[in-house]
């Protein structure tokens, strides 16, 4: 599997002590150039630079065909009852749609998009952790470790679902 990552995913995931397990799930994680430009902290930058050097991550350019599709997705999202997409995550979804990647984003609008107006799959850190647990690569309490280390909080219904499916 390959993925394309939005900044909202990366800035949290980079703080996770097991962040490199991401590459046990995805052969390559693509980083749009605009996303790279949004990253500022040393921790996240150094991690991305290391992973670019190793080939686990790769830069994805801004291409007109995906840019146009991303704008279309933004338009579609503004018509619905849920939150609208912004361009950077819409771009990730446009690429994911076409190339069969998983789009990685913590943005609620991106998560909703996969059920409403795109065939792309969108994973949050929650889905990545779920996949890691199903492969036996993280323990049952990984979701709580993730919350603590990244200061990212999962919705209560997702925590309950995690608990209901203990390994």
């Amino acid at each position: 599997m390959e993925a394309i990552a939005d900044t909202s995913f990366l800035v949290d995931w980079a703080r996770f002590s097991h962040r490199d397990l991401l590459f046990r799930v995805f052969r390559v994680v693509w980083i749009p150039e605009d996303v790279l430009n949004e990253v500022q902290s040393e921790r996240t930058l150094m991690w991305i630079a290391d992973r670019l050097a190793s080939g686990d991550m790769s830069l994805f350019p801004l291409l007109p065909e995906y840019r146009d599709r991303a704008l279309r997705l933004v338009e579609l999202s503004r018509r619905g009852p849920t939150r609208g997409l912004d361009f950077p995550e819409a771009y990730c979804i446009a690429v994911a749609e076409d190339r069969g990647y998983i789009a990685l984003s913590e943005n609620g609008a991106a998560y909703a998009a996969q059920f409403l107006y795109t065939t792309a799959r969108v994973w949050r850190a929650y889905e990545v952790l779920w996949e890691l647990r199903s492969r036996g690569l993280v323990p049952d309490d990984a979701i709580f470790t993730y919350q603590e280390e990244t200061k990212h909080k999962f919705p209560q219904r997702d925590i309950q679902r995690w608990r209901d499916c203990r390994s």
Partner: protein
Amino acid sequence: MEEHLKDREREARELRRREADWNYINSLPPRLRAALVFYIETGDLYVAAKIAGLRVEEFNELRIRAGIPHVN
């Protein structure tokens, strides 16, 4: 042939690491530092420039100031 190319890459990387002015590199802001470290490891000027947020020519000047050789 592949082994030969890998050896050349390894030698180039070691040369870049050895020649680099690490005092200068470590004095720089995170984005530039990350880009130079990436360049030392890979020799990839284009992506390093993207990490730095610079044009290729600007990054190349930074590379030179940091004492990192361009190894063919």
